[in-house]
């Protein structure tokens, strides 16, 4: 089950397995069901987008996958191992402000590397500075970075610890549309060189169609899996090709259904 096996296997195996996952919160003495009977398999190296209306429980789903919340029913397993808590092998990248303001760019990227020998950690920091195009800003504090740079920094910090899975919670939601478009390209480029499993939560249909191998459409609360759509267009995707638009329309229709229910 090591990553080496997965790389040599031509048909990658299941990385993440969710079985009958449900989540019920107690709020003001009432129980509120947020997730209901979620069954999902994510393959190793796959890029999955979770698409759903705002407030439907997408973030809760991601927190359950990441081990930050324990599901009230069902189970999540990764590589056949049940998830019991957060783990540096899978890193959650938050919407914004997730970088530590008291550390420089270098300090942030090196945050998870303190147990490595310093020569190796320096090498990794330099590698991910390069990959996320933050050269020249190594000694800059986040307050002096733009929103897009901060988000790239968060991704760099996550990748530096060599995780198998990257969870991204609407990572580009706070950015302007041009930066967001560029960031998607950057993320795809990184994913194609590093081949991690990525689970990406968004409420933006274009984002999902542009990025994902598969799109998981959630219904509104309590979130159930409404549909799963495969997008078999090679990257880089032509955003005005008929097939792209077809998928987009298809998703719009499904999301429309999701909103209606």
């Amino acid at each position: 089950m090591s990553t080496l096996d997965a790389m040599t296997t031509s048909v990658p195996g299941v990385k993440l397995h969710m079985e009958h996952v449900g989540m019920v919160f107690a709020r003001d003495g009432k129980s509120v069901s947020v997730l209901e009977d979620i069954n999902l398999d994510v393959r190793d190296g796959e890029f999955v987008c979770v698409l759903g209306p705002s407030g439907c429980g997408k973030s809760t789903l991601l927190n359950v996958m990441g081990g930050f919340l324990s599901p009230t029913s069902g189970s999540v397993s990764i590589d056949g191992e049940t998830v019991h808590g957060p783990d540096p092998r899978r890193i959650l990248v938050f919407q914004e402000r997730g970088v530590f303001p008291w550390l420089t760019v270098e300090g942030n990227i090196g945050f998870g590397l303190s147990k490595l020998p310093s020569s190796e950690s320096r090498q990794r920091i330099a590698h991910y500075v390069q990959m996320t195009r933050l050269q020249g800003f190594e000694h800059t504090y986040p307050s002096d970075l733009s929103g897009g740079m901060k988000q790239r920094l968060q991704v760099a910090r996550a990748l530096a610890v060599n995780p198998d899975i990257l969870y991204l919670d609407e990572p580009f939601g706070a950015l302007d549309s041009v930066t967001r478009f560029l960031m998607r390209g950057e993320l795809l480029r990184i994913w194609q060189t590093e081949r991690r499993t990525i689970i990406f939560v968004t409420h933006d249909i274009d984002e999902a169609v542009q990025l994902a191998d598969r799109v998981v459409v959630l219904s509104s609360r309590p979130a159930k899996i409404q549909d799963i759509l495969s997008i078999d267009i090679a990257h880089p995707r032509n955003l005005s090709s008929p097939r792209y638009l077809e998928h987009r329309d298809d998703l719009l229709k499904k999301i429309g259904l999701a909103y209606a229910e």
Partner: protein
Amino acid sequence: MNSWVRLRPVLFIAALVVIWQIAVNRHPGQLLPGPWEVLRGIGDLLRHGLLLKYVVASLFRVTWGFLLAAVIAIPLGLTIGWYRRAEMAFNPLVQIFRPISPLAWIPIAILWFGVGDLASIFLIFVGCFFPLLLTAMSAVHNIPDLYVNVGRNFGLNTADFIYRVVYPAVLPQLITGLRITLGIAWLVVVAAEMIAVNSGLGFLIVDARNAGNRYDLVLAGMVVIGTIGLLLDLGMRSLERVKSFRWGYSEN
């Protein structure tokens, strides 16, 4: 432009001193000693070696009382703040002690420690302890969950988590708390020295009045106290500009 901005407070003070001199000239002997007499008073104290001795005595007490309070109150406050249950248990007690003026402790300080340095150090300690405790408690509360989650995600053990997430996250607020509390310490030391000891700037003021109504020396003491207070504050403020925790102030 910039030098003008910096000069403005100096000019303002100079103008007030001039008004002070004019007022004293118009009502001689009724109001206060004039600025010139006060300056001469400071000169007198310097010549007799008293000024330096008293300043050192006061700073010595402030340093110990303040440091002792910081060393005990900050770790305690951070711990109490982190564990919500501990906070529910401690909070009423803290709220009872907090509004008691440190000066109310003077009789007890003298009872326990007699007249001397220890009594005034104790009073400064009491004056600083509760503000610092509350600062530390609220600083822990204000750590965004986000930072806590990132720390958990990267698998830090407890010691690393405290050192690399909690400590840097609370530092800006702690520094502001320390700055304000140092001001309190400087207030308390003067009061404590008026009663509990025979040296220091507070003693200087009482002594100058008792020994022949030397109001020039009373004012000289006040000017010195004010000036040192300003310098202490400027020193603490310069900490707030350090890059690695400046983030905590720029957003407010």
